[in-house]
């Protein structure tokens, strides 16, 4: 097998997202980078997709017949994205059962490049305390700054982190809200570089909107963040729903890019956690236990 730049076998063996399928043109080579490797992908317009290590004879933007490409990498299509792996991936990608519900709107809200490690971006996604400061008057507003007690567990059978009973005051919880409310959240981290959140749906109080972030590690300090929306919203146009999420992410980006160091320090004494950071503390421990070294600064042993 080809020598890889990333030496972290845990990360190499994962499925990683490369692009939203709906944004890949048929029969044309698309170039991207995963774990410092140049990759190419293409689809044939009938739902078949191929991913391979970039080659001179198949230049980016050039035509390609994917049935004729030899030496391809493993491919999965899940949640509207193309996934691949540079190692020996598991049979399945983590489940998001709500994705199968017929009445949900499913969109790639955006794919954003961010100059930060994937674990820093995951921590930001899990964090509620920054809402009033970074997403002012949208996801939070001063003086409603309290992060109330919530529960975190690391589920051993599912090998994922679950944070429940999370609540935060939001002045405008989504495109369909017209006022402030305490919003309920559930956060899952089922993959070192992916997280899924569930939040109160303003349309149907018995159900939850699903928003996921799937991070494509370009290298240890750069990611492409793919954001999946799987929401209950019959009224708004795609672009309105997308713009809301893009605004949110656009506010996080400059903060993430000003975190130092860019890789996530796993030494408990590198930074100062508070009770509100319970889920981040669990996430850092989980990464340490898995032996993840890519995108992190491992704790000295």
């Amino acid at each position: 097998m080809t020598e890889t730049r990333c030496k972290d076998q845990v990360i190499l063996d994962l499925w990683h997202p490369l692009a939203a399928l709906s944004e890949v043109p048929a029969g044309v080579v698309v170039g991207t980078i995963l774990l410092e490797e140049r990759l190419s992908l293409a689809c044939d317009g009938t739902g078949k997709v191929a991913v391979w290590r970039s080659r001179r004879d198949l230049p980016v933007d050039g035509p390609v017949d994917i049935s004729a490409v030899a030496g391809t990498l493993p491919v999965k299509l899940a949640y509207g994205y193309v996934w691949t792996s540079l190692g020996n991936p598991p049979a399945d990608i983590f489940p998001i059962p709500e994705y199968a519900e017929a009445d949900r709107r499913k969109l790639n809200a955006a794919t954003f490049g961010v100059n930060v490690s994937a674990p820093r971006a995951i921590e930001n996604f899990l964090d509620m305390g920054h809402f009033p400061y970074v997403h002012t008057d949208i996801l939070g507003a001063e003086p409603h700054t309290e992060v109330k007690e919530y529960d975190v567990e690391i589920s051993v059978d599912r090998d994922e982190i679950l944070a429940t009973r999370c609540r935060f005051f939001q002045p405008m919880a989504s495109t369909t809200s017209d006022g402030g409310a305490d919003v309920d959240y559930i956060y899952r981290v089922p993959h070192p570089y992916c997280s899924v959140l569930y939040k109160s749906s303003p349309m149907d109080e018995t159900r939850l909107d699903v928003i996921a972030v799937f991070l494509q590690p370009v290298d240890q300090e750069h990611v492409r963040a793919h954001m999946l929306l799987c929401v209950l919203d019959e009224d708004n146009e795609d672009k309105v729903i997308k713009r809301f999420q893009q605004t949110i992410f656009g506010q996080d980006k400059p903060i993430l890019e000003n975190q130092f160091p860019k890789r996530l320090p796993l030494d408990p004494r590198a930074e100062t956690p508070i009770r509100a950071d319970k889920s981040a503390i669990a996430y850092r421990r989980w990464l340490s236990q898995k032996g993840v070294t890519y995108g992190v600064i491992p704790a000295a042993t």
Partner: protein
Amino acid sequence: MLDLAKSRWHPIAAAHDLPLRHVFHGQLLGREFAVWRADDGYVNIWENRCLHRGVRLSIGINDGRELKCQYHGWRYSNRTAGCTYIPAHPADAPARTITNRTFAAVERYGLVWSAEEPQGEVPEVSGFAEGKLLALRAIPVNAPADVVAAQLTGYRFQPSGNIDGSAAKVAVEASNAFSVALRSSEGDASTLAVLFVQPVDSNRSVIRGVLDSEVEGAARLAVLRHHNELLSRLRVAVEAEAAREPAPAPLEPIIERVSPELAEMPEETTHGRKATIRVQVTRKWSAADGIAGFELRPLKGLLPTFQPGAHIDVHLPNGLIRQYSITNGPGESDSYVIGVKLERDSKGGSTCLHETVREGDVLAISEPRNNFPLRRDAIQTLFIAGGIGITPLLAMAQALNNQSLGHELHYFAQNQAQLAFPEKTKTLGASLKPHLGLSPDQTGAKLREILSGYGPDKHVYLCGPGPMLEAARAIAAEMGWPETAVHFEYFKNTNVIDDSTSFEVALARSCMTLTVPAGKTILEVMRDAGIDMPSSCEQGACGTCLATVIEGEPDHQDVYLNDAERKSGTKIMTCVSRAKSARLVLDL
């Protein structure tokens, strides 16, 4: 050479890089700084990282008194860099030891100087008169500092008095690895230029030039432009030369780890009734009729970070220990200001401060403790002060005022002359509501009026004489205020303490069982057994010696806990309260 550079002073900014409420991003030997000037003029040079999640503080907000991180709104105090507020947990006082790393800062020759491990003073430049100099525009250069300094010896320029000439003779008066002094002369005109080279990183430098004389008006612009053009040309040459050598690896500054106890966010640990800080009374004045103001400055170093609501123990020359609230607003960190009312029935504390202690005297004080923390997540905050009870509430009102958070300060006193600290209350504008000369009945009616209209996200803070606090708490309860929204601090515990019982105390974590006899407190018995327990007022008013009860029924005799906390039976003030059961198990 760069190792030696750590102990030297280097310019890291020009004084004019720190305008009002700005945060400047500086760098020295690979280490980034957040540099900001507080409204009181103090220049802060800090590690450019919030201790919480590593976000650069150079993108933070300088509110003139504190620096606020953009990510989670953590606030850090002017001077000490201690964290004063964590908005995610509004009911908690942050552990005082959450303090960012600070670096030395000196303003000299129109430049701001710093060093990682400074030795000696900022270099003396002969021929430089402070305040009559001209700092040139900084020129960044992608080259090592010594290469830049070597090239600067060949820098040729016109004296400021003959900028259009072309025949200046330039002599090198001094040079070393980080600076070059050059004198340019033509005819009668002569200018001394000192060019300092700031080693930003192993391969990056900034040339910070200073001329020996000010130039005014249009000529000033011409002089600045002259040097800007010539130094920019020099930069091109130096960079070309440096590019011939392989670039040295960037420096990797060592970021200090936070203390082990902070890594897990434990309970605050401060011990004993110790007075570790020596302060001098630098000012004593009449803050109001019957109230003396004291300004206390540290004999050396900086005072610890305080939060609004915090108090200090003052150890008096006559051996008494008294508690006084810090009245300072946020960022006022060069001294503590306290107010002391002369008590008619003084047991010697207030009399000693009023009559014996003078300006220039040295006193021992404890670190500030905050058992009366201020939430800042309320829509509306009411402060109700009676007399000298103004002191903690004054600090709180100034903090909310600084953040433009809604509040009212109701200040009850006999007359105008008894309103303390007018220079501080004046800054609060219309939020200050004095209520003067009211009888007890009238006070009750006024409290009723103030406390009507409870709503969610409203909080009230009370401090004043016992009877007034009792009345205000009863009225608040009657008006529908939940206990969680009513915060209070008594001056003293006027309950008659019954210490006639005897019982057993088991300390769960220390695996120790002690017997508390009649006439001794739990605190005293624990101290005798070598258990170091923080305390302050030792009369059940301040909240410092609070312990968690795991088992047994406490006999509450304090005035710190509210009724809900008393009923829960899970907290006890160990300095006065006792046990109704034969045995108490404490989480100590």
